[in-house]
């Protein structure tokens, strides 16, 4: 790993090696190397259609990679599926918001605790003491998360009726409920106004500090990306174009060319 910029003393939570996927004849992602270190906020940027969301789908096992390896927490993730990768500690949000529309905001977050605080359906049907203990814990933790993401006043609102910015924050709260080591945010600031984006930046930093997790985010809002990401990877046509600190990326002629054209 010597060729990559590394924070000395930190180990990679996520280590992607020569990752690639083909859809029929189309190579969507190719030869991608990417590391995310403990407690780091990393960014994945690139022009539209560069394959950023495809990378997220590969990391969360929605797609099986055609080539390459994904190591999470030092272990190869081959053979894991969408559910087991979440149990292993990768949580995500979606570019096109995917909430449980008919459930309340609080219940949306509570679904995130499915594997964190488990109890059996029999316990639920018979209302055994364990049910009450577990539900109390879930309720407390879910409300804590809502408070952190400033959603507590919406707790009893049906999710599909939330304002747009709050829906994005709710996705983050739900993902955090699964107790991840790595959080993948797919365009968390999309559709937000500058003030909301600024608040979101503070929130993302707070979440990282509070939970001590690593965050990898896709974002088009350069102010956000350059403002909070410690390291940025640039994708173009499924290939890695550049990798480095925000300053390095901003002055990289290749990146400027990819974004602005010749």
């Amino acid at each position, binding site marked *: 790993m010597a060729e990559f910029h590394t924070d000395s003393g930190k180990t990679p939570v996520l280590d992607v090696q020569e990752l690639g996927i083909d859809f029929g004849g189309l190579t969507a992602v190719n030869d991608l190397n990417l590391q995310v270190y403990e407690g780091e906020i990393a960014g994945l940027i690139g022009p539209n259609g560069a394959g950023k969301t495809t990378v997220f789908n590969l990391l969360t096992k929605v797609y099986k990679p055609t080539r390459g390896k994904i190591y999470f927490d030092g272990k190869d993730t081959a053979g894991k599926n969408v559910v087991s990768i979440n149990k292993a500690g990768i949580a995500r949000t*979606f570019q096109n918001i995917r909430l449980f529309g008919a459930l309340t905001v609080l219940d949306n977050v509570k*679904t995130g605790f499915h594997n964190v605080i488990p109890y059996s359906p029999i316990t*639920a*049907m018979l209302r055994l003491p364990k049910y009450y203990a577990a539900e109390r814990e879930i309720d407390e933790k879910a409300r804590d998360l809502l408070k952190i993401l400033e959603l507590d006043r919406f707790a009893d609102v049906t999710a599909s009726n939330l304002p747009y910015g709050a829906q994005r924050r709710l996705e983050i709260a739900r993902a955090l409920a*699964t107790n991840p080591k790595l959080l993948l945010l797919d365009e968390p600031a999309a559709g937000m106004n500058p003030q909301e984006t600024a608040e979101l930046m503070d929130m993302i930093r707070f979440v990282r500090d509070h939970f001590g997790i690593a965050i990898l985010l896709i974002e088009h809002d350069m102010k956000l990306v350059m403002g909070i990401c410690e390291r940025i990877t640039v994708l173009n046509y499924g290939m890695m174009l550049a990798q480095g600190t925000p300053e390095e990326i901003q002055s990289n002629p290749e990146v400027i060319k990819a974004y602005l054209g010749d």
Partner: protein
Amino acid sequence: MNKISSILSRSQDKQKRGRVLSFAIVIIAYIIIEIMLKTGSLSSLFSSLLVPVTCYVVAAIGLNLNVGISGELNLGQAGFMSVGAFCAVCVSGILAGTVTAGIPRLIISMICGAALAAFFGFLIGIPVLKLQGDYLAIVTLAFGQIIKSVFMNAYIGIDSEGLHYSFVDSSFKLQPGGKMLLNGPMGATGTAKIANFTVGIVLIIIALLIVYNLMFSRSGRAIMAARDNRIAAESVGIPISRTKMLAFVVSAALAGAAGALYGLNYSTLVPNKFDFNTSILILVYVVLGGLGNMTGTIISTVILILLPELLRSLQDYRMLIYAVVLILIMLVTNNEQLKSKWKSLTGRKAKGGASNG
């Protein structure tokens, strides 16, 4: 802001009130009917309908768990009732000599009926619930037809030597004192009628408890999450097919218990009773009562069973009126304009407008 304030009124208290309401309706209805039975002011027609109504209510509550809460269409609920009914009739017939008291035998038979129906549900669910789309509807539709054919051709008899069965004809000879439990197309005959209304009401309450306890728990949230957004549900670690299986099996078990009660309420029960039409009728109760709405399901089931009977005096026109009433209810409950008109009539909208302003 208009929107938010109206949404904020929808709280968990409202859900709780809905739950309490459904139990209250069942218990009050029971008390009223018991009083009417005691005073003899209930016609024989209605008193004969009491147990079937409780059976259909339980089957509909079960179906609502599957269709409303889990979001999977099931067109074979009558098939599961059929499994429960004939299993219970057989168990009751076998136990007739050993467990002479009616109620314990009824309970054992119902548990067996529910368990067998749940087992069939599990078998069907294994391949089907892995798939996305309306496959469950197709397979349960087929299941309903197949199970009807199976019971049409099932001959089961019991005598001093034990159980005899055949799927061709009643070719086996029973010892003197033996009796046929299932008789092919003629179904079960000579069943001891051990079902009663009180057990039916208890079964409704148990069904409500199971469904509500499941709905407002980890599993219930998972079931609803899988319904609302499959991809997001998987992303938070919810295994979709296992979750849907839980709802489907519980739904089948409730139908089985309901069928068992139904079967033990009549001395004769033919397999044709539980055909596709019955499945659709139960689905109509559920859709009309509101998907996911148990109180609505109870009310719509009772009304739609009683309606044709109340209209009996109109003879040929009764099914026509039944259809018109169905369409009217659907229009009123699903048409936004009619809904708002209804709300303005009842004054609920004016109140909402005031709080928004």
